[in-house]
C-alpha cells in the first residue's frame, strides 16, 4: 500500500474526511492551526463546508447546530480554546448529540505556551464543563493512528449520541510521519430519526434540548446519561500492551509519552530488566482491566509517565486500589519527558524492588 508523508494535524483532517465528516467549524490557535488550514482546502473538494467561527465559543455552538441537524461534524482547538468550548460541550452532552472535538494540547495553565503537553487529561476525561457528563476520549500515539482513530471517534459519537474527544499533544499535531491511507473505510452512519431536519409532514416534532426545569425530569435525563456511560465502560475500553505480560515493572503512558516509553522498554529489555508498557488508547473509559490483570501476575510496580503533574496517575491508582505500588514521573509546562529520564526512574524502581 502506498505511503504518504503527513503532518499529524493534517491527518486529523483527512481522518475526518474519510469518516464522512463534511462539516467543520474552526478557529485559529497554535499548535493545531494546520488542521483548519487543511480542511479549508480539503472540504470544498468533497462537497463539504469549512467555516471559520469568530471564537471557540461560536465554533462549538456551530457544531451544536450541525450535530442537531444530523451531520457528522467536527471542531478542533488547543488547550485554551478547548476551555472556552466547555459550556457548549456540556450542552451537547446533555442534548445527546454526536460530534468530534480534537484537542492538540499545549503547555498550560493560562496562556502557557505552544509546546506539547498532556495537562488537559482531567479536563478531557472528567467531563470538562459543568454537570455530570463524560466524553469518550481517544489518545492516538502516531500519525497513522490519528487517521484510524478519528474514524473510530465518529463511530463512537454516533453509537452513543455523545460528543467524543480526540486528544493529541503539540508534537503529534506538528510531526510528520508516513501514513498508509488505503481505500476509504466503509462509512455507515446510523439513521438519525431524532435529527431536526423538518417534520416532513409528521405530526410529532423532534426536540433537541438541554433544559429541564423540573428536577425529577432532569434526574431522569442524568440517570439515562449515566447508564450510557456505564455501557461505554463495558464496551469501549481500548489499550495496547507492549511486553506487558512478563514484565515486573510496567510503564503506563498515553500518546507521545507512550512512544518514549516503548524506547525505554526496548532498552531495559536489552539490559535484562523485564519492563513492559500499557498504553491506554481510550482515556475515558479508562482501561483498568490490563492493570488489574497485571497486578495478579509478575508485576511488582507500576510507573505512570505523563507530560503533566500526575493526572492519569489518579485513574491508575483508582484502578489498582493499592494492589501494587504506583510511581510517577512527569514533566510540566510543555517540557518533554526523555528516554533517559524515564529510564532513570525505572532503574530506581527496579533497584528498590531488589
Amino acid at each position, binding site marked *: 500500500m502506498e505511503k504518504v508523508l503527513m503532518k499529524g494535524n493534517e491527518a486529523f483532517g483527512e481522518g475526518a474526511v474519510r469518516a464522512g465528516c463534511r462539516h467543520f467549524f*474552526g*478557529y*485559529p*490557535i*497554535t499548535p493545531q*492551526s*494546520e488542521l*483548519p*488550514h487543511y480542511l*479549508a*482546502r480539503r472540504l*470544498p*473538494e468533497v462537497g463539504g463546508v*469549512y467555516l*471559520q467561527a*469568530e*471564537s*471557540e465559543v461560536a465554533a462549538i455552538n456551530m457544531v451544536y447546530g450541525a450535530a442537531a441537524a444530523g451531520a457528522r461534524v467536527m471542531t478542533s482547538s488547543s488547550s*485554551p480554546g478547548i476551555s*472556552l468550548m466547555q459550556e457548549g460541550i456540556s450542552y451537547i452532552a446533555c442534548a445527546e448529540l454526536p460530534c468530534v472535538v480534537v484537542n492538540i494540547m499545549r503547555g498550560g495553565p493560562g*496562556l502557557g505556551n505552544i509546546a506539547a503537553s498532556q495537562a488537559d487529561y482531567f479536563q478531557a476525561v472528567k467531563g470538562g464543563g459543568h454537570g455530570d457528563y463524560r466524553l469518550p476520549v481517544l489518545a492516538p500515539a502516531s500519525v497513522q493512528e490519528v487517521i484510524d482513530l478519528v474514524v473510530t471517534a465518529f463511530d463512537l459519537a454516533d453509537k452513543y449520541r455523545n460528543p467524543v474527544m480526540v486528544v493529541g499533544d503539540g508534537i503529534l499535531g506538528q510531526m510528520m510521519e508516513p501514513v498508509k491511507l488505503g481505500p476509504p473505510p466503509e462509512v455507515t452512519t446510523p439513521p438519525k430519526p431524532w435529527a431536526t431536519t423538518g417534520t416532513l409532514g409528521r405530526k410529532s416534532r423532534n426536540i433537541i434540548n438541554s433544559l429541564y426545569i423540573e428536577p425529577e425530569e432532569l434526574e431522569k435525563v442524568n440517570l439515562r446519561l449515566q447508564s450510557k456511560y456505564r455501557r461505554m465502560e463495558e464496551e469501549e475500553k481500548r489499550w495496547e500492551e507492549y511486553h506487558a505480560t512478563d514484565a515486573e515493572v510496567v510503564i503506563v503512558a498515553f500518546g507521545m509519552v507512550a512512544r518514549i516509553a516503548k524506547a525505554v522498554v526496548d532498552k531495559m529489555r536489552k539490559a535484562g530488566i523485564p519492563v513492559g508498557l500499557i498504553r491506554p488508547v481510550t482515556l475515558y473509559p479508562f482501561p483498568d482491566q490490563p492493570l488489574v490483570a497485571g497486578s495478579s501476575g509478575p508485576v511488582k510496580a507500576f510507573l505512570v509517565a505523563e507530560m503533566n503533574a500526575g493526572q492519569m496517575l489518579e485513574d491508575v491508582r483508582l484502578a489498582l486500589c493499592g494492589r501494587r505500588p504506583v510511581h510517577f514521573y512527569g514533566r510540566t509546562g510543555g517540557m518533554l519527558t526523555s528516554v533517559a529520564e524515564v529510564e532513570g526512574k525505572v532503574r530506581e524502581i527496579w533497584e528498590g524492588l531488589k
Partner: protein
Amino acid sequence: MAVQINLKELSKKELMLSPGHRLCAGCTAPIIAKMVLLAAADYPVVANSPTGCLEVSTCISDYTAWKVPWIHTAFENAGATLSGVETMYRAWKRKGKIDKEVKFIAIGGDGGTYDIGLQSLSGAMERGHDLLYVCYDNGAYMNTGIQRSSATPLGADTTTSPAGTAVPGKVQRRKDLTRIMAAHNIPYAAQAAPSHWQDFLKKVKKALEIKGPKFINVISPCNRGWRSRLDDAIQLSRLAVQTCYWPLYEVAEGATKVTYKPREKKPIEEFLKVQGRFKHLFTPENEWIIKKFQQDIDQEWERLLQEESQSS
C-alpha cells in the same frame, strides 16, 4: 479642540516600546504602538494587549519591550481587563489613594478586536470606562498563520480562505468596526494610518484628552500575510488611504469629520496589485471581485462624505 504636533518636541521624548522585540522585519504593529505611546508621553500610561502578534513578540518571558506598565490578557478580554483596571483606579482616586491622571490604553490586533474580543470591547464602551482602545488592523490572524478574520478584505487569500478553483479567496466583505464603535455613541471613534503620522498622533492626543471610552482603528500592513515587500509597509498604508480603502476620519461627539481627502482617489488596483494575497484577482474570471471591491469603496466613501456634510 485644536491639537498641535511638534515633531521637534516629540523627537526628544523617550520611545516607550524598546527595540529588541521579536516582531517580524517590516512589521507595522510596533510602529503603531510606538506612535500611540509617543502621543501619550505626557501621561503615566497603563497598557494592555490581548493575545496577538504584538503581545507574543513583545513579552517573550522574563523580557518585555514595554517601558510602561503593561498587562497581557487572554484573546477575548482586553476590553474587560482594562475595564477592571480602570475601575480600580477610579475607586483609588475616590479614596484619595492616587492623584495622578493615568491613561489606560489597550492595543490589540483585528482577531482579538473584531472577532473574539468584540463582546468585551463593546461592554467596555457601553459602560463608559475612561480608556482608549487602539486596534492595529492587519486583516487576518497573522500570529497563528494567516487565517481569515472578519477584518480580512473581500477576495484575500488566507490559509482558511484559500484562493483556488472552488473559492476565490475570502468571499465576504470586511466588517466596518470603526462604524460599529461609533454606533456605541462613545465620545470619540476614529480611523488612522501610520503613513499619515501627524493625523494619527493628533487623533491619539485628542482622544486622550477626552473623558470616557475612545476607539481608534489603525491600518497595519503585514508583509507576511499581505505577501508584500518587506519595506512596503508605510507605502501600503499610504495607498490604503489614497485609494479610500482606509479613509481617515473621526466621529467626535457624534460629528463625523473626514480628516484627509485625497486630491485624486486612486483606483483600488494600485493597492491590490502590490500584494500577493490578491494576485489571483487579476484574472478574467475574478475581475468581478475587483469591480465589487471598487464599488464597495466608492459607496462607503460617498456615505462618509455625506455623513460629514450632515454633521457640519
